């Protein structure tokens, strides 16, 4: 099934000297998202893959139902959701203030704060910090931020091996693969495949899989436990992200299930956390909202098994050195867009993926970044700019059904941002790129049309993806009266669609698709 993924990974140029037995498999090494095909092509590959589709359907439907139940337990869910959105908006509207306050708090508590404007700078900072310890390996907690900047690859180039310790990330890393879901990154792998990956690859990394490993989940988890334990016990440097940073106190928070996070945060002497600047919240008390909404939205639990909170360093307990690397990498560009900035409220719960009819059929890899699903469709084009056909096509990877908005625990109006970005693709306009306000031209018309028509057609050729699509009209009408809720004005101009907002998207599509090619 992996034929759709194989060609994309970039092998590591330098193998580690202590690995004589890498063999033809080479060293397990993170694949990369660079050069991913645009959404429709990638989606087409995933869609043909029936196992991926059925894994995804099973997974998303299971989590979806459980989430609804976990949310229904809280009578004040809507109020928590509004409060979460308001806290994030307060933070974003005064982000400079809270970042400076955070820096002071972390420093006061014994941590050191570093600022990284982009991925290259963050990678350089982390590499230098690891080098300064004299170590050549680090243990890592699952972190989308470090995937976003390609940290593992950068460390590998510097001769430092980064070991992923989250079970799913381990599966992904050993399989030389890409994560496909925020929460369950190996959702595209089944037990048999995981057994094979462990059996064939673990020995290249360290402790081999036990003889005669079965494909029972418990046995696979045990194999991972044994394999990783030796790494935890000897680890001197841990690398993490964070779910929240509290400006007032300097506290960082990591929410997890397996305990690998606790291992990485507690056992090493040096801890380096790479965190996007939008992850700050103003006060300790604000955690009372997110610690209720995140677990229920994410794993559909009242509370996830482990939450770690640490404030700088503590004498005699845990790492002696703590470094916080604050990452921009397109976040301030996103912040500059008054409609698009709400994407920075995201707490990465993945609820929007699990309800998305397009994600369910396309799979996570099609989104071409560590951020799949609806959030990826609005975040990736903003973080990277509308830089290539992939980013241009992502805003079209949606039927605008609004299910993502309904479940989002911080009330991000994803359809609103999608429509806004579509307009940007088609019409061009003012955007901020690497801190500079720039006028972008409309995407070359034929290219834009191609990208959007392919994505849109892909969506509409999969009728289930449109199941909830009927609410589109009322939604977008309120947002952008008089505008076409689809490919945007350039399209409208050339096709002269009459009174478009009064027409359902499906009808519009049925009527116009013949013209599109």
């Amino acid at each position, binding site marked *: 099934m992996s034929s759709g993924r194989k060609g994309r990974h970039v092998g590591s140029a330098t193998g580690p000297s202590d690995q004589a037995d890498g063999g033809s498999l080479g060293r397990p090494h993170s694949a990369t998202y660079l050069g991913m095909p645009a959404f429709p092509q990638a989606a087409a590959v995933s869609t043909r893959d029936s196992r991926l589709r059925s*894994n995804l359907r*099973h997974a998303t439907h299971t989590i979806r139902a459980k989430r609804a139940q976990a949310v229904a337990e809280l*009578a*004040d869910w809507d*109020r*928590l959701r509004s*409060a979460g959105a308001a806290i994030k*908006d*307060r933070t974003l*509207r005064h*982000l*400079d203030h809270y970042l400076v306050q955070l820096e002071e708090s972390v420093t006061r*508590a014994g941590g050191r704060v570093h*600022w*990284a*404007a982009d991925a290259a*700078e963050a990678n350089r900072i982390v590499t230098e910090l690891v080098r300064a310890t004299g170590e050549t390996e680090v243990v890592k907690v699952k972190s989308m931020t470090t995937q976003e900047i390609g940290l593992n690859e950068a460390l590998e180039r510097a001769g430092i091996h980064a070991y992923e*310790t989250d*079970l*799913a990330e381990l599966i992904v890393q050993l399989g030389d693969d890409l994560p496909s879901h925020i929460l*369950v990154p*190996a959702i595209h792998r089944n*037990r048999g495949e*995981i057994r094979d990956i462990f059996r064939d690859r673990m020995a290249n990394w360290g402790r081999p899989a036990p003889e005669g490993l079965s494909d029972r*989940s418990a046995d*696979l*988890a045990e194999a991972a*436990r044994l394999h990783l*334990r030796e790494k*935890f016990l000897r680890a001197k440097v841990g690398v993490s992200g964070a779910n929240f940073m509290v400006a007032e106190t300097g506290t960082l928070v990591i929410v997890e*299930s*397996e305990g690998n996070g*606790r*291992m990485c945060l507690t*056992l090493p002497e040096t801890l380096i956390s790479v965190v996007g600047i939008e992850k700050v919240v103003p006060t300790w*008390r604000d955690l009372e909202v997110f*610690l209720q909404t995140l677990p229920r939205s994410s*794993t559909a*639990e*009242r*509370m996830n*098994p*482990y*939450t*770690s*909170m*640490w404030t700088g360093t*503590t*004498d*005699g*307990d*845990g790492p002696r050195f703590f470094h916080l690397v*604050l990452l*921009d990498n397109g976040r301030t*560009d996103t*912040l*500059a867009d008054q409609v698009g*900035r709400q994407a920075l409220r995201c707490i990465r719960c993945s609820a929007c993926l699990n309800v998305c009819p397009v994600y369910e059929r396309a799979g996570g890899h099609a989104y071409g970044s560590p951020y799949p699903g609806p959030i990826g469709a609005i975040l990736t084009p903003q973080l990277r700019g509308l830089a290539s056909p992939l980013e241009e096509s992502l805003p079209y990877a949606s039927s605008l059904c609004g299910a993502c908005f309904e479940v989002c625990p911080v009330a991000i109006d994803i359809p609103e941002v999608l429509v806004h970005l579509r307009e940007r693709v088609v019409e061009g306009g003012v955007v*901020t790129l690497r*801190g500079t306000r720039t006028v972008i031209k409309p995407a070359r018309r034929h290219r834009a049309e191609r990208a959007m028509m392919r994505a849109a057609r892909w969506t509409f050729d999969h009728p289930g993806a449109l199941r909830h699509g009927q609410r589109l009209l009322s939604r977008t009408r309120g947002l952008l009266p008089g505008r076409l809720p689809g490919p945007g004005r350039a399209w409208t101009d050339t096709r002269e669609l009459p009174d478009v907002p009064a027409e359902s998207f499906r009808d519009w599509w049925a009527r116009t698709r013949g013209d599109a090619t």
Partner: protein
Amino acid sequence: MNTAASRERILGRVRRALADVPHDELPEGHPVARDYLSTHGQHTPIESVDLLARNLTDYRALVHRSDEAGLPVLLSRLLAARGARRVVVPTGLPDRWLAEAPVDIVTDSASAALSPGELDAIDSVVTGCALAIAETGTVVLDAGPDQGRRSISLVPDHHLCVVRIADQVVDSVPQALLRLAPDRPLTWISGPSATSDIELDRVEGVHGPRTLEVILVAGDPRPTSAYPFDVRS
């Protein structure tokens, strides 16, 4: 490029990006309505403890009840049932608790800290806690004297955690945060470590203790006047 220059660059970008935010808007000026509930439902103390027990059990922690007098016997029985021989405890754990247990007791402290490798050879750990949250089935450790360094309740595969129901059970997450001190390292534990990464099958226990036993102990509340923002001794 140095990171001080990047600091200025990023803060400058943030300020330019926020040109639409009125000049005189204070950070607290953007309203946050905290009209959500501070607890979900009204519980008597007994109901709260029952809810805690139910929610802990629901997430596969093993829950036991005892009174102060019966605690040593219960701990001894649980350790024996587990076949534990070497047990690590923090310095502030009351000696009495393990007085009946036929095990080797290793006391860990900041000055005599066990290495991760040494902890890996330990069968069980016994700790107290800072508090427990009924609505979510959570125990919170704050590295207090009866809980010790974070690693001792992490590396061994079996964790026995004692909760004093008289003064350590709160109903909700908001209540818990009010009582916890942010400057202490905190570990919130809701059931044993788990993963659903393999075909969404929940498997208990990957890296943290695979068995979590929580003992709810009835008894008189301790004096808590200094709690929680002082280090208890």
